[in-house]
């Protein structure tokens, strides 16, 4: 029946990929993702996992190997961060366009320059438009559970898309947490063996990755977009089945005390735990604060996000990456505004940039942000960077 253990989240992520019985892992070292693939190579070296571990010469080749492997019909896994993601990004677009259900964990880290190994969401935001399904973990247990879910969803023949599981670098990847690790039989009952829709097989030749002339390119892109949109139903269904089997239920947007909240913090990832602590602290002072945490980043859960926030007077939207648009909103800020615009809904919204390159964000910072949102009175205000020196 599995067991609850204290374990570093990266090690648990590797164990999850091993429990999913991956056939091929292709990866290149980059902090803070490294412990994930180090542990996978150990599992292969010690005979605990029967897989090919390809120690590639770059992240670009890591994703290229993953495409070859997945196209050949193997269950395929990799992990990266930050600059590594940037280098492989060319091939990430192709992985989703070729509809290959590769699973990748990204230990989120800031982008250079200045070079920073510490956590923010710049790599996740960079990967926003690659056509991958993307989920964002808040804690170690979620990382493990989302990896099983990623294979289940990506490999579903109604979906056939790669899945990126985001976890905050260091803050999650290097933390030792109590995590329930299921046993192999439980995982097997949830996750059937990968049955590719088609594969590179001399007995049934197919040509993959052909030239798309102008008379077919738009249709190809439309089909891909529809696949990503349609995946949401399968994502939700797979979470329901996961909950029924493992007792932990997930949904696209997680809420904390939003029912009666006047101010709602919209966030992603591990910072949401601080946000919940801040919400409790503010509630103790008589302020009705809640948290809406986006777990499903792509496809974007418009309706699921609007539902909990529609009653709030004030919204605090957190972005953990710069948006050099020269405009007034961050990336998540813009997404949230788009949802509100479509619903003709105009709360008092403040968009804050927080926690860049490993900068700590405290409960006090949250109190400051909630105060500013409450005092705003509905005027459009440009984003503001919090906890920064002039």
């Amino acid at each position, binding site marked *: 029946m599995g067991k609850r253990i204290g374990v570093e989240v990266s090690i648990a992520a590797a164990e999850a990929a091993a429990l999913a019985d991956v056939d091929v892992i292709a990866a290149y070292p980059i902090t803070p993702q490294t412990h994930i693939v180090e542990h996978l190579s150990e599992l292969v070296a010690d005979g605990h996992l029967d897989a090919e571990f390809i120690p590639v*010469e770059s992240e670009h080749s890591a994703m290229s190997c993953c495409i070859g492997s997945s196209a050949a019909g193997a269950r395929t896994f990799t992990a990266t961060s930050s600059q590594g993601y940037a280098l492989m990004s060319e091939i990430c677009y192709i992985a989703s366009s070729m509809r290959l259900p590769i699973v990748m964990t990204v230990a989120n880290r800031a982008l250079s320059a200045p070079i920073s190994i510490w956590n923010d969401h710049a790599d996740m935001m960079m990967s926003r438009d690659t056509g991958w399904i993307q989920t964002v973990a808040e804690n170690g247990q979620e990382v493990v559970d989302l990896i099983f879910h990623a294979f289940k969803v990506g490999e579903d023949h109604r979906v056939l898309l790669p899945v990126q599981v985001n976890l905050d670098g260091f803050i999650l990847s290097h933390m030792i947490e109590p995590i329930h690790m299921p046993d192999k039989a439980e995982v097997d009952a949830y996750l059937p063996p990968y049955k590719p829709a088609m594969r590179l097989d001399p007995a049934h030749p197919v040509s993959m*990755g052909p030239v798309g002339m102008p008379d077919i390119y738009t249709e190809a892109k439309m089909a891909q977009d529809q696949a990503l949109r349609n995946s949401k139903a399968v994502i939700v269904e797979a979470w329901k089945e996961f909950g029924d089997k493992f007792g932990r239920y997930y949904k696209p947007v997680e809420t904390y005390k939003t029912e009666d909240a006047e101010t709602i913090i919209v966030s992603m990832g591990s910072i949401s735990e601080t946000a919940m602590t801040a919400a409790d602290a503010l509630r103790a002072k008589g302020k009705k604060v809640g948290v809406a945490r986006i777990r499903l980043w792509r496809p974007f859960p418009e309706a699921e996000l609007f539902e909990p926030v529609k009653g709030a007077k004030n919204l605090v939207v957190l972005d953990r990456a710069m948006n050099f648009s020269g405009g007034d909103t961050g990336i998540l800020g813009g997404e949230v505004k788009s949802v509100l615009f479509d619903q003709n809904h105009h709360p008092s919204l403040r968009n804050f940039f927080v926690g860049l390159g490993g900068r700590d964000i405290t409960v006090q910072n949250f109190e400051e942000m909630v105060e500013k949102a409450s005092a705003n009175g509905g005027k459009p205000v440009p984003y503001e960077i919090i906890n920064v020196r002039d």
Partner: protein
Amino acid sequence: MGIAAEAIKDFKGFNLKNMPEVEPLSSGHRACQGCGEILALRQAMKALGTNVVVCSATGCMEIVTSPFPQTAWNVPWIHVAFENTSAVVSGVEAAYKAMNRKGKINQPDVTFLAYGGDGSTADIGIQALSGALERGHNFIYICLDNEAYMNTGIQRSSSTPWGASTTTSPAGKYSKGQSTWKKNMPAIAVAHEIPYVATASPAYPVDLMNKVKKASMIPGPAYLHFYSPCPTGWRCGGDESVAVARLAVQSKVFPLYEVIDGQYVLSRKVAKPKPISEYFKMQRRFRHLTETDVQMIQERIDAEYAELLKKCGVEA
């Protein structure tokens, strides 16, 4: 005996009487008239047969064989990007290895082929190629060398020979054309200490096919460098590409040899070498060169050939 020599010791070879009829790369593709690249690739595929997975770099051979919804490929084929075909084939080979071992498939004898042009091989894809050779995947890599980026319109690569005029190394008042010597890719492959490296030319189809077949029989990586005339980019007649290819060998510009387990073996000694001026005359990319330029190139070619003979243990 080294692993390559051991693997091919009983190989009898193709001849004009036992040519395979199979055409894994079919006609009806959209290559230019007289394309030496598609000719060489067709010969290679005839030698390999159909129990093969082919990984293609972006380039002429990808474009002309795969305009959706048509394909010229009768074997499984994948194209991903320009610089990564060696990594893609690494993934395919690893997948087959893992799935065969785990009993998920029973296809232990599939051959894995990756190919790319000279730009893809010697420039943008050299890192991925080096990685795949170093890791020892069991695959064949073919460089289809037409000595420039032909697909994008005849731009120079590091495999363009000195003096060739291309659209980014044009001959002009202050330029002789390409100002650097051709990168020696086979030597770079040999430096990886892989079991088999060879050069081949579509003007010598039996030799080419034998080398491809040997590469498929040898475990581990094999690197093949094909001389692939491009009438469009070299500015010669479409009906002259085989003649140009033959002349390149006869003038010592492109010698044919193998490197088996690190040992150089000359495929054919050029008994009465033709002057390179004859080879140059057929191609307008060299027509701006002066007699002095040609003499200087001839000296370099002679020295390189002498060096090769020495490596092969053949007397000059």
